[in-house]
């Protein structure tokens, strides 16, 4: 890895492994022996299996549902329909965006794959067989498969279940200054515009979603083993939806085989399995097939965007105007903060300094699966970053400027932070020029530019694409950011035991990010207890403090901060106990990692382990025994990771195929807790960015049939297609985060799609190709080249 910044100066030894150590992961031990414990690995005595009957049609009225043949099959215990659930007031449930969603359809089906009935049986195969025997009679209605058609006056009403809903509009939302922006555009030398569609995609973690619901009819205790990125929030939702007393609901989120936003919402299958367990009195397991996962659970993106940039002749940006139309599917179930109907899309002003912007957004219901999850991104930041980075690239070409120079000219400068953006974000810190310079140097920008010219003479097409993204992660503060009213804080509980070993319990839930390794390092840094002496516990609502969960890169910014703060609080208490042990005044003590000593008398010292033992054995007069505490951290602001990505591609002029020759990624996520883990996160994020730019998308035919319902049609890159990545780093700490960290799990997915597409467009611009929407597949490239010729 290349870096211009001083690495975090290591305060701890490798044995202690505080911040900055590439500590090997503790969670690996169970996974490399096949001893992980995922939801589908859980088997309980008497457990039954559930399978769901789904709609083959995208839009139809249900005339009748005949479950008799299914119910009569040997091994079938029960068939659940929406009518039955209605008896428990569970036929509908709230979504995370305050809409309602059918648990099992009763009136109409509104997308292909919608849940209609569920079979509970003694065996998974029998359950699936029986689900196929359910007969539903339909009256077909016009399927609405685009948001444009959806908003036409004569389009049939999709959400006729909602009182007062007279059209298919789902929301409108705007941000920024319309008049100021209009004035800026009126005074511009040039207006550069771009229409682009960020297609529907799916997070598709390799483990699908699932639940084992175990409701004990004698005690009323409901233990729900769920693929959940947010177990505490889910417990509250279950309490509200199912009317179960919250103290009797225990959500256990065991090992999770990847989440990427897919495991944030509450899905109908979870609710039905829980209701079935409640009624039958036995544990019920439901695990999606891949097709169910792709056609019915949380998709990402599906934004149609129009952007305009007002610029001066010499390349200064004056303002930005963006209009966005989103395809929400049948139910508005974006997982996002309540106040923001299009997530944090208004971060679309990007890494550049200009006074005004105006962003308008509309959402439309369509006959497609609901979702709108933050697919490896902080609430629509990926779409925003793509829009602005494609737009500035095209603006540079239209002005005849070099895209790197154009960006440099317009960057928010290092000394402008904290920076108030035109749409109201307060960027905490940044050094955009620093990241850009390092990326250009690593990729050999000037040499590539020279080669491009030469290549063209030889009939080859070479392109270099840049993206200088700014992300916004780590929601709240709770005054502005909440989900269903729950403030977006997070928590950490730290217990230091008498022998100096510790347990750290968190409200977040890792899905592969390595929290068990890295969060122990935060405590190690603050208390000097070796990370290997600290166990990290997550994912069990009975045993961890309340938190909003892991998504939108919020674990390190929020729960990481909570961890540092509680460790510091315990260190303050430890100091009092140390003063007692050393018979000195607290003011006379000084701390160095792992021990307190008397100023000027370094021989008089006690280790943190000595203090921990004393906390339970000899705590001193007037001091509360024990060395434990919990902290709930409501962040003062979000954090703003950034970076510059540079991609070099070779495009085949004959076939339109393109190949990534170089991919350089310079990330600045503030202080890096564990550089090895950070780099692993970036590798994964870049791969998903490459996937979306080159192959991954979910489409529908005119009847609303989902094209992309399995991994043969929904393409995910293998090791063969995936480019090699070269990483670089700069370090600009977050000024308000206790350890200066910003969060990194999603930066690469947010930043990289534009870099890949910009590279292809850079190669094709001289031919007259100005845009190709993702996925930029060979056939689309070829078609664009042909069209430009004619």
């Amino acid at each position, binding site marked *: 890895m290349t870096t211009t910044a001083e690495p975090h100066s290591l305060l701890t030894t490798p044995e202690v492994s505080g911040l900055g150590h590439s500590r*090997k992961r503790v969670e690996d031990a169970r996974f*490399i022996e096949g001893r992980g414990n995922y939801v589908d690995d859980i088997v309980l005595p008497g457990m039954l299996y559930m399978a769901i009957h789904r709609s083959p049609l995208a839009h139809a009225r249900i005339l009748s549902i005949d479950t008799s043949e299914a119910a009569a099959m040997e091994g079938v215990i029960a068939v659940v329909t929406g009518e039955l659930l209605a008896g428990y007031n569970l036929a509908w449930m709230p979504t995370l965006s305050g809409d309602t969603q059918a648990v099992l359809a009763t009136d109409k089906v509104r997308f292909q794959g919608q849940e209609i009935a569920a079979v509970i049986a003694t065996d998974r*195969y029998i359950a699936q067989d029986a689900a196929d025997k359910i007969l539903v009679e339909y009256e077909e209605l016009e399927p609405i498969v685009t948001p444009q058609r959806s908003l036409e006056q004569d389009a049939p009403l999709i959400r006729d279940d909602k009182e007062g809903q007279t059209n298919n509009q789902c929301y409108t939302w705007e941000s920024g200054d319309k008049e100021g922006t209009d004035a800026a555009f009126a005074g511009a030398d040039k207006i550069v515009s771009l229409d682009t569609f960020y297609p529907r995609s799916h997070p*598709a973690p390799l*483990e699908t979603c699932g639940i084992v619901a175990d409701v004990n009819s004698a005690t009323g205790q409901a233990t729900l083993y769920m693929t959940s990125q947010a177990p505490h929030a889910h417990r509250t939702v279950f309490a509200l939806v199912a009317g179960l007393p919250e103290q009797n609901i225990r959500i256990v989120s065991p090992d999770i085989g990847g989440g990427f936003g897919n495991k944030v919402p509450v899905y109908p299958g979870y609710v039905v399995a829980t209701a079935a367990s409640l009624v039958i009195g036995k544990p019920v397991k439901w695990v999606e097939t891949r097709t169910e996962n792709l056609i019915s659970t949380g998709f990402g993106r599906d934004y149609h965007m129009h952007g305009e940039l007002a610029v001066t002749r010499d390349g200064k940006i004056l303002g930005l105007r963006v209009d966005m139309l989103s395809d929400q599917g049948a139910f508005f179930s974006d997982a996002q903060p309540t106040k923001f109907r299009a997530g944090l899309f208004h971060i679309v002003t990007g890494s550049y300094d200009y006074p005004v912007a105006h962003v308008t957004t509309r959402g439309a219901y369509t006959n497609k699966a609901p979702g709108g999850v933050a697919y490896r991104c902080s609430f629509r930041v990926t779409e925003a970053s793509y829009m602005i980075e494609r737009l500035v690239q095209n603006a540079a070409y239209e002005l005849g400027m070099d895209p790197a120079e154009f960006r440099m000219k317009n960057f928010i400068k290092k000394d402008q932070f904290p920076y108030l953006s035109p749409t109201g974000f307060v960027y905490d810190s940044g050094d955009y020029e620093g990241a850009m310079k390092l990326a250009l140097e690593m990729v050999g920008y000037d040499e590539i530019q020279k080669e491009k010219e030469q290549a063209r003479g030889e009939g080859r097409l070479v392109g270099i694409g840049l993206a200088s993204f700014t992300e916004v992660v780590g929601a709240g503060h709770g005054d502005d950011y909440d989900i269903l009213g729950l403030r977006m804080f997070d928590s950490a509980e730290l217990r230091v035991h008498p022998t100096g070993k510790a347990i750290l319990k968190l409200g977040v839930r890792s899905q592969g990010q390595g929290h068990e390794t890295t969060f122990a390092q935060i405590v190690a840094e603050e208390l000097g207890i070796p990370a290997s002496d600290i166990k990290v516990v997550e994912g069990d609502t009975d045993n961890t403090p309340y938190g909003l969960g892991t998504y939108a890169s919020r674990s390190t910014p929020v729960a990481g901060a909570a961890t540092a703060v509680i460790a510091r609080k315990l260190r303050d208490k430890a100091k009092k106990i140390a003063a007692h042990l050393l018979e000195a005044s607290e003011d006379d003590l000084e701390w160095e990692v792992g021990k307190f000593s008397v100023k000027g008398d370094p021989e008089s010292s006690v280790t943190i382990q000595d203090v921990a033992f004393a906390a339970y054995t000899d705590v001193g007069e007037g001091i509360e025994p024990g060395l434990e505490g919990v902290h709930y951290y409501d962040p003062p602001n979000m954090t703003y990771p950034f970076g510059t990505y540079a991609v070099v591609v070779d495009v085949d002029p004959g076939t339109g195929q393109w190949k990534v020759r170089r991919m350089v990624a310079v990330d600045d996520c503030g202080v890096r807790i564990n550089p090895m883990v950070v780099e692993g996160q970036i590798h994964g994020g870049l791969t998903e960015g490459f996937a979306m730019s080159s192959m991954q998308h979910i489409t529908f035919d005119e009847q609303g049939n989902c094209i992309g319902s399995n991994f043969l049609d929904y393409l*995910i890159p293998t*090791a063969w297609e995936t480019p090699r990545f070269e990483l670089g780093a700069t370090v600009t700490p977050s000024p308000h985060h206790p350890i200066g960290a910003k969060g990194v799990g999603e930066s690469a997915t947010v930043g990289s799609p534009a870099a890949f597409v910009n590279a292809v467009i850079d190669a094709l611009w001289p031919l007259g190709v100005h845009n190709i929407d993702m996925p930029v597949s060979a056939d689309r490239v070829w078609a664009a080249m042909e069209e430009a010729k004619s």
Partner: protein
Amino acid sequence: MNVTVNINGAERTADVEPRLLLTDFIRGTLGLTGTHMGCDTTSCGVCTVLLDGVPVKSCTVFAVQANGRSITTVEGLKQNGQLSPIQQAFHQEHGLQCGFCTPAMMLVGTALLEENPNPSEDEIRWAISGNLCRCTGYMNIVKSIQAAAAMKSEEVSA
């Protein structure tokens, strides 16, 4: 139907439905949950096991087809209580994140190194191209297999 397999060195027999998939036989009947199910269509490869030493995607093999054959799953990689080179290497090189594809990746890597003890990066990428990973971008999986190859060649020369 009766199926007898040698799994990770132990003989096991069970009476199963003819349509039972090998994945469900291994996970459900035999209780070895290190083998996973990810796509049902032989695309993702998380269900990969070694059948007579050859990687197969067990979601599209019937249990009865494994009758009389030998199966290695992730649970069988340890030898004499010691982690195998490939297991050590995945830990050392950060070759896993969520862990869901890991057992299959390690088995494919094991089979590759049996056949080709010193593979090039392209040969490794080709060998694992039937197995998807959503977390790592494959960079460190490739490094892990390279590191395991180096460990094994050291073992041989020692």
